[in-house]
């Protein structure tokens, strides 16, 4: 008899018949959907955050829809105009529209942010998963290395990395991502350690499932929740870090617009033309706040579980 032969089919055990438990009422789909929607409307901060990030995403994807002015070529006659009807955020010393520079700069800044978060998420998770799943001496060594990384201030580490890699948006992004690898690794390691000791993981091993398959099918799906929330939180931090580095001049070379670089360009006119630094800075601040607010809401929804 091979393993897949049909064995003798026994008679099913007759379950005693009593009235079933009918105490549970599930509200209809409409009623259920209404709950979260109403709850969301009660949090205006969250709604505003979602709308603002949607707008910023729009800027990044289709900047020409949001502004008629050229971000690179200015009108010298209109230089250093204060914010008004024609120029929403005013103009700079070359007569370029600051608003359209912010809008066109979004793509580069967001791209750098996304790369930074992805580097942190994937590299950090890979290191943390290996550390937690293999355990023992490997874990010891990796975690001491992570300790060292954690002891260096993030921006300083990014500066060091970008100095080695050279200038450019992608290099800035990688530098920012490397700085967050350690915290991702630490977080997912603790989740993997917790999941690894669950009974169903051991049950899989008893069934003869190989270790890589156990990791992929059983441990990972139960461990990624909190790093995903951390990734969402990291978005805000990464926007700030990328902007900081581009403010220091490590980002895209001029005249390409980038959020941090815009703030830097306005430094010399701080007293006479406040809008050059303030308005791009405000956009950065709002983007960071919105990202953090949304990350908090995701955490509250139970993503980390």
């Amino acid at each position: 008899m091979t393993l897949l032969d049909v064995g003798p089919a026994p008679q099913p055990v007759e379950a005693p018949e009593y009235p079933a438990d009918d105490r549970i009422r599930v509200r209809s789909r409409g009623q259920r959907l209404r709950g979260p929607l109403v709850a969301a409307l009660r949090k205006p901060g969250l709604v505003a955050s979602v709308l603002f990030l949607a707008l910023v995403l729009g800027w990044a994807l289709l900047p020409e829809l949001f502004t008629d002015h050229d971000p690179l070529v200015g009108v010298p006659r209109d230089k250093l105009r204060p914010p008004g009807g024609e120029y929403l955020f005013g103009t700079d010393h070359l007569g370029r529209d600051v608003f359209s520079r912010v809008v066109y700069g979004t793509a580069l800044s967001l791209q750098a942010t996304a790369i930074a978060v992805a580097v942190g998420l994937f590299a950090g998770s890979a290191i943390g998963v290996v550390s937690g799943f293999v355990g023992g001496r490997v874990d010891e060594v990796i975690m001491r290395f992570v300790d060292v990384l954690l002891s260096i201030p993030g921006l300083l580490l990014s500066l060091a990395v970008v100095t080695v890699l050279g200038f450019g948006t992608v290099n800035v992004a990688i530098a920012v991502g490397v700085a967050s690898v350690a915290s991702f690794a630490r977080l997912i390691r603790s989740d993997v350690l917790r999941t690894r000791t669950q009974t169903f993981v051991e049950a899989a091993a008893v069934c003869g499932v190989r270790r890589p398959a156990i990791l992929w099918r059983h441990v990972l799906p139960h461990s990624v929740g909190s790093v995903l929330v951390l990734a969402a939180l990291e978005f805000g931090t990464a926007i700030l870090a990328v902007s900081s580095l581009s403010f220091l001049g490590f980002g895209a070379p001029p005249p390409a617009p980038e959020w941090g670089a815009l703030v830097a360009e306005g430094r010399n006119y701080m007293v006479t033309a406040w809008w050059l630094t303030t308005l791009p800075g405000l956009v950065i601040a709002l983007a960071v706040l919105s990202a953090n607010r949304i990350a908090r809401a995701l955490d509250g929804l139970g993503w980390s579980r």
Partner: protein
Amino acid sequence: MSAPLLTLSGLHVTYRAHGVEVDAVRGVDLELRPGEVVALVGESGSGKSTTAQSVIGLLPAGGAVTAGSITFAGRELARAPERVLRGIRGAEIGFVPQDPNLALNPVKRIGEQVAEVLRVHGLAGRREAAELAVQILERAGLSHPRARARQYPHELSGGMKQRVLIGIALACRPKLVIADEPTSALDVTVQKRVLDHLQRLTAEDNTAVLLITHDLAVAADRADRIVVMRHGRVVESGSTAAVLGAPSQPYTRSLLAAAPSLSDGSLVGTRTLDDARELLRLEHIGKRFDLPGSREQTTAVDDVSLTVRRGRTYSLIGESGSGKSTLARIAMRLEDPDRGRVCFDGTDITRLRGRALRELRRRVQLVYQNPYASLDPRLRIDEVIAEPLRAFGIGDKAARQRRVAELLDQVALPAATARRRAAELSGGQRQRVAIARALALQPELLVLDEPVSALDVSVQDQILRLLVRLQQDLGLAYLFISHDFAVVRQISDEIGVLRRGRLVEQGPTAQVFDAPRHDYTRELIAAVPGRARTEVGR
């Protein structure tokens, strides 16, 4: 007849969460007179704990009394303000919670926790309360009460902690004590001592007791009246003798039939052991564990030898900490023994590693105690059951699906179960799935680690019958781990009694039961609840 102390009439309790409403209790009527012991019996989810919690106004979040009334000593409690309830809780109604390991504050000394009840109800000042606390602990049956009062909860055993909680519940000499499954987290011998003590103390003070339990045998031993609940309604109530002797409802009858007791016959009959070849042999197994935070070691298993035969059931019985689970894990090769040999089908598997160990998994499978933990909640049931087949690359997808359907049929689950997830199934259904997964590779030996102790009695009975039927159909050998003598008696051919890692007695089932040679075996058998019921039933 005296006036009732506690009256519930038409009590309705509803839980609300995430768009789902559950009417946990639907119209319960209950009366309790002073000094009376009433047992509220039902399976998990029957609403018995919810009923008890609503009396003291401590329903979990989302729960609310929606209709009906709760009258205690002439006062209405269902809609009483929190301030009034606080004055009654502890002082007039004592509460003994289910799990003593969770119910005490781990960072406060025992004495302070007992004294706290007296102080918050203004019955004693600080110094006086400390003195009274020692007396209460002594009355609760703790040895060295003065020393115990200065200890922290982690320094006490489970049974001692439950005594402390009983002491706290009775500290203010309440008129009513609600005991919510007071002993289900304890070993049988401890359970008996704790219940004896509770009974004596409440009898002295003429305290009424509302005893919540899923165990009919416990109810039979302790209660004057029994109230059977199901799906939030009272199915049957009456004096203990009437309910157990002549149950009028089919549900009560089925509960009674399902409850294992020592008077029940064996499900497997007497099978000869001589013609069955040996399959698993443990020889002089020893295992020690390091104690966390100290250099000492504890002995988990000490020089145990036993033999499991093909097509037969060997049961290991013992209390928690006796080393029975460690022994099962050594037999499964999930744990390495320090000394001794594990032989399977004539070959030494003690040091098997890697590929050879994985091949062994085809022939030996394990069913865990807790079906809520042993199934991956993210996988569908067909994926769970097919997992061992996938792991060994047996059959293609369609063949595996056919095998899953066949296995579901073998464990008497509907075919549609395959598309569901573990969270949608009840405990009994989950345990059937776990058994189906264990059978997928057609093993020769199943190690069953307390496979029914997390289940309700009626479900427990169904699973035991299923195991017996599968053994007959497939010729499986079982190594069955349990703490429950009544269960073991029903399905075993041989029994080994473990105590502190040593096998104090082993032999054929009938011999161990009818002529136990070791005092500890006798003590275990005597502690099994349900003696009263056996007598009533006759």
